[in-house]
Each structure stands twice: as structure tokens, then as C-alpha cells.
């Protein structure tokens, strides 16, 4: 019996060692540099929270993540709902479409958005054909949001669909047969039951959006940088390891706080479902 418990535990070791050296050690060294480079103390954090420009970066990061989440929710909610009422073939198509971004490389999709969003790109031409625009999309926050929503949609649609497929739609017929207007029935009966999916999807998208680097760097304007771009510049361009580290600690802290929130939400809804 003893052999059975000690043996399997040893199998975990190689992976743990790899994680220790190439994941934990890097994170710790970032943490250490935030507090020690160029001199020990809280100087880097004082610099970060003291400069108005940094606060603008932080605010812009939050507002981008917020808009990405909101737009993704607005597009994904009807889409996930359609998945639950579709026939088997239509459902297969809808599922396939939402999974395509999963296996299309991030770099490829971002490059495609660079083309699509150009001032003379397809989107502006299409808008021009119906008498609108041209709008500047590339190098703006709007462009960044459009690109990021497309990249993150699967993370919104899938949890929404998971929850929605468990909702008994006969409740809707019951409400309407009792005289409720279909819209009112939907808002009062269906929407509240789908909220666990909404919060899980929103938090997942928001968390991912906070740390995005490639898409904002290529679609956004260099003067409107987000926090991950600033970290990149501090370390790679200016060799300010401490400042970059401090910003990294702030970004990591925010991310972990969001994940804790997600865990609490999931646990609470889990309890509601089971009991």
C-alpha cells in the first residue's frame, strides 16, 4: 500500500521542478527587482502611483478591458442563446465558428485586424459604400476593442452556453401563458437564471483583457499604451527593471484579485445550483 502512495507522488516531481525553475523563479525575481532595483525600498511603487501618466495608463487599461467585456457580452449573449435553441446541424456550425479563433494563431489574427482596420481597409470601404466614414480605427482604442473582442469571444460564449443549456425553457412558455409579455418573461425568468454564466464569462474576459500585450501593441496607438506595453517599454527599452517589476506586481495583483472574485462567484452559484 505504501508503495502505491509514494510512487505516484514522485511522478509529479519533474513537472514541479520545471515549474519551479521556469515559472516560480522568474516571478520571484520580478518581485524582488520591484523592491530592490535600483535601490531597496518602495521607490518603484511610489514612482508608479505618483506619476499621473501611469495612472492614466492604468485607467486606460481598465477602460479597455471594460469595453471589451461589455461588447463581448452584448454579442455573445444572443449567440449563446441561439446555440441553445438551434437544431443539431445549426448548433454544430455555431460551435465550430466560435472555436475557430481557438486554433487560429493570435499573431495571425492580430495581423489580419491590422489589415482590416486600415484607413483604406475593408471595413472603411464597406462603410464608405453606405455613405459613412472613413473612421480612423487602427491606432485607436476602438480598433483595439474590436480586435480583442474577436480574440476573446470564445471565453464569453462557452460559459454562457454551458449555463443557458441547463435552463428549462418551458418556464418561459409558462410565464407567457400566464399573461406575461414575452420580453418581460425573458427578462424576469430567463435572464436571472443565466447570470452565473454572465459573471463567469465577464470575469474571464476581463482578466484576460487586462494582461493583453500583442493586440494593443499592434492595433493601438503608442501614445495610448496599456499597462502591459508600458512594462515592455520599461524593461526592454529603458532597462528599468525595478519600475517594470513594480508595474508587473500591480498587474499580477489586479489579476489575482479578479480571479479570487471569480472563484467566489463560481462557488456561490455552484452552491445555489446544488442546494
Amino acid at each position, binding site marked *: 500500500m505504501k508503495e502505491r502512495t509514494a510512487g505516484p507522488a514522485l*511522478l509529479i516531481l519533474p513537472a514541479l521542478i520545471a515549474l519551479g*525553475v521556469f515559472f516560480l523563479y522568474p516571478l520571484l525575481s520580478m518581485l524582488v527587482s520591484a523592491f530592490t532595483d535600483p535601490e531597496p525600498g518602495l521607490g518603484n511603487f511610489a514612482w508608479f502611483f505618483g506619476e499621473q501618466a501611469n495612472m492614466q495608463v492604468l485607467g486606460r487599461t481598465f477602460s479597455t478591458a471594460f469595453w471589451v467585456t461589455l461588447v463581448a457580452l452584448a454579442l455573445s449573449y444572443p449567440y449563446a442563446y*441561439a446555440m441553445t435553441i438551434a437544431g443539431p446541424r445549426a448548433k454544430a456550425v455555431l460551435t465550430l465558428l466560435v472555436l475557430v479563433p481557438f486554433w487560429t*494563431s493570435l499573431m495571425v*489574427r492580430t495581423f489580419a*485586424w*491590422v489589415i482590416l482596420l486600415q484607413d483604406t481597409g475593408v471595413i472603411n470601404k464597406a462603410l464608405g459604400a453606405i455613405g459613412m466614414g472613413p473612421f480612423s480605427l487602427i491606432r485607436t482604442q476602438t480598433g483595439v476593442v474590436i480586435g480583442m473582442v*474577436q480574440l476573446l469571444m470564445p471565453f464569453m460564449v462557452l460559459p454562457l452556453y454551458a449555463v443557458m443549456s441547463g435552463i428549462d425553457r418551458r418556464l418561459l412558455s409558462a410565464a407567457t401563458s400566464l399573461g406575461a409579455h414575452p420580453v418581460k418573461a425573458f427578462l424576469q425568468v430567463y435572464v436571472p437564471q443565466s447570470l452565473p454564466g454572465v459573471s463567469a464569462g465577464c470575469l474571464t474576459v476581463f482578466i484576460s483583457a487586462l494582461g493583453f500585450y*500583442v493586440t494593443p501593441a499592434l492595433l493601438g496607438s503608442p501614445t495610448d499604451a496599456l499597462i502591459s506595453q508600458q512594462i515592455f517599454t520599461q524593461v526592454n527599452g529603458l532597462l528599468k527593471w525595478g519600475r517594470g517589476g513594480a508595474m508587473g506586481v500591480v498587474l*499580477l495583483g489586479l489579476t489575482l484579485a479578479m480571479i479570487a472574485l471569480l472563484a467566489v462567484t463560481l462557488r456561490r452559484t455552484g452552491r445555489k445550483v446544488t442546494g
Partner: protein
Amino acid sequence: MRARGLLWAFCTLIGVWLVAPALIVVPLSFTDKPSLKFPPDGYSTRWYANFFGDPAWMSALGTSVQVALLVTVVATVLGTAAALGLTRAKIRGLALAQGSMLAPMIVPGVVLAIGTYAVFLKLQLVGTLAGFVMAHTVLALPFVIIPVTASLRGFDRRLEDAAASLGASRWTAFRSVTLPLVAPGVASGALFAFVTSFDEVVVSLFIQSPYLQTLPVKMYASVTRETDPTIAAAATMIIVLTTTLVLVATFFVARRTRAK
């Protein structure tokens, strides 16, 4: 009924929007002009010729394939072993071990990238094959551990006991009973490991050197500097490669489930 029509129209639009980027890149790679104008006016294969004739693109492709294959092997072996341990060991701190294995999925790329860069400067791993492989392996591990753990949880351990009672050694029982049954999980983990490495940009941007770059890093540098359709040719080949991998994997899983 009208509401339903609207819903389907809306979903069609979203569907187009989801696949549009991939569909733009392919025709663009066949343009005959040195510009990224879409739709192209004429067609040619000159950008593919350019890609295969340019040592910088070819070496980036070679590095990417080499790194991704090595990551697939290392991450699949480490991840499968870890999944076995996590599902079978009865030790304290198991939940913690499991949690930490999945942690690379949630840490923002840039945060891990600057830390990795600092450590790699110290260990002299910047711009080395080993450096790329280890940095990507850590990111790929969760994608192996999750599917393998899932298929091990659905595995009836009494089958192993049966094999052992018929005289098989533990290794034989594992190889000829357990492994074939959890193979779909291992295969999908291996596939995800390959794609994770082949796709990785942020950490790679920091640990690259002018002499050793991966394909996404080369693409990133090209997008920021030039408007050269060779990037579109590179992107098309990435799309074809990953789509083929996914189709092959789907085909294998479908055939296995039908065989049962």
C-alpha cells in the same frame, strides 16, 4: 417569428466576423503587388517564393517547428506523469500541487516574460533553443495536464489490477492497458502543447536574439516595420498547419469513439 429571424441574421454576422480574419489573410498572401491592399488586384505566388527564398523567414520557421516539436515531447511526458501522480497519489498538498500546475494559464504573459528574461540573462539562456523549449514547456503543461487528468478520472483502475493479477508487471500493465485507454487525452494534450508553443509571442519576444527567432516573433517584427505581403504568406502557412493538426486530431478522436 420575426424575433427569431433577427436572431439568426445577427448570428450569421457574428459568424462571419469570427472567421473573417482567417479568410482575409489567405487571398492576401497571393497578391501580386508589394502592398497589403485588400482585396488584391491580381494574383501570384511571389510572396511564397520570397518566404522560401529568405533565410531569415526560413530559419524562423525552422526554429518554430523545432521548438514546438521538442515542447510537445517534453510537456507531454512531464504533463502525463504529473497527471498520473495527481490522480493517484494520496499525499498532503495535492490540491496545492494541482493548482500550481495550472497557474501559468492565469499569469499575464508580460509579467512572466520580464521575469523569464531576467532569469535567462542570469542563466545565459537568452536566444538559445533550450531557453525557448523550457519557457514554452511551462506554458504548455496545463494544456497537457487538464485533458490527461480528465481521461484518467474516467479510467477504471480495476483493469490494471486485472492485468497485474494475470501476471503483468506494473509497467506492462500501464503500457498495454492504461496508456491505450487514455491515449485520446494524451494526444489532445500533445496537440495543445504544440500549438501553444508554435503560437507563443510575448515571452518569445523577450528571450529571442537576432540569431534565434521563432516565426511569430519574426511576424511581429515585420508587422511593426514593413508592409510586406510575405507576412501574409507566413500567416497562411500557420493557418494551414494548425488547421491540419486540428482536423487530424478530430478525425482520430472520432474514429476511436466509433471503434468503441
